[in-house]
């Protein structure tokens, strides 16, 4: 905890009219961490991520990234700072090829605009494109989607689309990557693959991961720290073991009297 947190939310509240999506949530994410947000449906997890990525603006409170206040920054500027994200419901560019989708992720790293882009061979746009293509191919190799790189994204099956979306977020070269339910709707094998990718991203690519996930087994396995939201309030934060043992969490999240579920989850948490 010695390092400066890469992301900090301070007393974030979000209201839509009378609906309180988030109430006074504070937390921080340390560099190099895998940090998970869990909670029942409608607890405000995605709202929290939207406050970080800029889709929503908190009604109260502040969001700090790398020590800088980004509460009122436009979403498009946040990509340049190093925040990438994937979406819960796929949000690929459906008519573009996989390759182009991932190249869009490079947007803020590319320098050539429309004028030099139209000239292509003159002015170096081609050189830049090819250099970035090389790096994008590394991401494609890493996520094992070589066979679909020329396919139109909208025609791919669900599991592959999830992976392409992850690739697009990685292409941003983010310091912090926000994953909104990366494993939703996947079978066991796909989940294992995805967990491996996330761990590799964290350990080898050096990205800090903030993840929302419902699969408790995965969350407890790969997260360093976990925050639990319920009805827009933070009810617990800490290591997976600590959170699982928390009385509030058991009651709010895992069901009150259902000891069996809690034990299952606790078992999953143990290595």
């Amino acid at each position, binding site marked *: 905890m010695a390092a400066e947190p890469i992301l900090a939310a301070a007393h974030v509240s979000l209201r839509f009219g009378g609906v309180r999506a988030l109430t006074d949530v504070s937390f921080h994410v340390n560099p190099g961490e895998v940090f998970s947000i869990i909670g029942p449906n409608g607890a405000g997890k995605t709202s929290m991520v939207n406050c970080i990525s800029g889709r929503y603006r908190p009604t109260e409170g502040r969001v700090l990234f790398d020590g800088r206040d980004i509460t009122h920054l436009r979403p*498009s500027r946040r990509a340049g700072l190093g925040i990438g994200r994937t979406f819960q419901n796929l949000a690929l560019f459906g008519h*573009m090829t996989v390759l182009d989708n991932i190249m869009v992720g*490079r*947007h803020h790293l590319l320098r050539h605009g*429309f004028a030099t882009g*139209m000239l292509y061979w003159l002015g170096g746009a081609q050189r830049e494109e090819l250099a970035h293509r090389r790096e994008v191919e590394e991401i494609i190799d890493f996520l094992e989607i070589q066979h679909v790189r020329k396919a139109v994204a909208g025609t791919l099956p669900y599991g592959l689309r999830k992976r392409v979306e992850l690739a697009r977020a990685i292409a941003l070269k983010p310091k912090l990557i926000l994953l909104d339910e990366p494993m939703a709707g996947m079978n066991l094998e796909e989940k294992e693959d995805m967990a491996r990718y996330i761990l590799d991203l964290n350990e080898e690519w050096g990205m800090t991961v903030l993840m929302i996930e419902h699969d408790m087994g995965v969350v407890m396995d790969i997260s360093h720290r976990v925050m639990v939201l319920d009805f827009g309030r933070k009810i617990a934060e800490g290591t997976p073991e600590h959170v699982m043992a928390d009385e509030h969490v058991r009651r709010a999240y895992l069901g009150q009297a259902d000891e069996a579920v809690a034990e299952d989850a606790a078992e999953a948490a143990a290595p």
Partner: protein
Amino acid sequence: MTPAGDFRTSYRADTTIFPTRNSRIALWLGLALLCAAPLALGRYELGLLVNIGIMGIAALGLNILVGFTGQISIGHAAFFGFGAFASAWLHDAAHIPVALCIPLAGVMTAAVGLVFGAPAARLKGLYLAIATLAAQFILEDFFARAQWFTGGVAGRITEPFEILGWRADREESFFYVVLAWVVIMFVGAANLMRTRDGRALVAVRDHYLSAEIMGINLAYYRTLSFGIASFYAGVAGALYAHYLLFVSVEAFNILLSIQFLGMVIIGGLGSVSGSLMGAAFMVLLPEVVQAGADALAGGAIDRALRLGASISFLREMAIGAVIILFLIFEPDGLARRWRLIKAYWKLYPYSH
């Protein structure tokens, strides 16, 4: 789809506009044939080709806006007209050579397009359509009133294209001017679409929320798209002005705007080459229907149904009917049909 055995060994080879060797050979062959066209074709046919080229450039501009960025504009003809007047005015007022007036008129039109495109940063769909409709009427009104710029209702005489003493005042010579511009503008658009800003435009169309998260400034790209579309319209309009050697207000009404939209839809939304196909279709369709009407005139059917003078109305109706049939049976445009035909020949005799 690439033929078997055609493997790319570099990223450079994988990002070419024309992917196969045969398509490149066909391209150069086609260009050579076009260069020889004035030797073989009459003035009327060359005039049609010139029209296709000019309309193709304007349609491409509209396609960048409508097909690639997913905006809508029903004021494209007004920008086309602005380019025509701007080029004529630049030559008369500032004595700039016509060869330079054409790109400058494009730039001027782009500036006007950016002004009228500003609402695009905030409006979408039908609301934006109405805003561009307003642009159409405002500009038309401006054309009618700004005597100094357009010559008012009387119109304005323009000078022919001239460069290094070579005058392009006939179809045979002006054809090359248009051909050069078509190549430049279409290559430019194809290049745009394989670089950063072109991808950003398509991203804005496909999913603007995630585009924004990817670092794409929505307002900037929505407005930019209007600027680029207007530039293309302006250049096409300028070529049109120096081809007809006379421009007048009536030509640039909303009907022409809708014709441009028709070209883009028939050619294929979001297809660079489709824009040219759509323009060719719209320019040639009246010719084909006219030929059909001529063949009909005086024949047995004509006499039996006593068509007489209404044959020319039949022509207008046929054009409308063809467009409707196109929308129903070929909504993805000629560009897709062309891809399917190519795929058919590559795979023949197997269908998959």
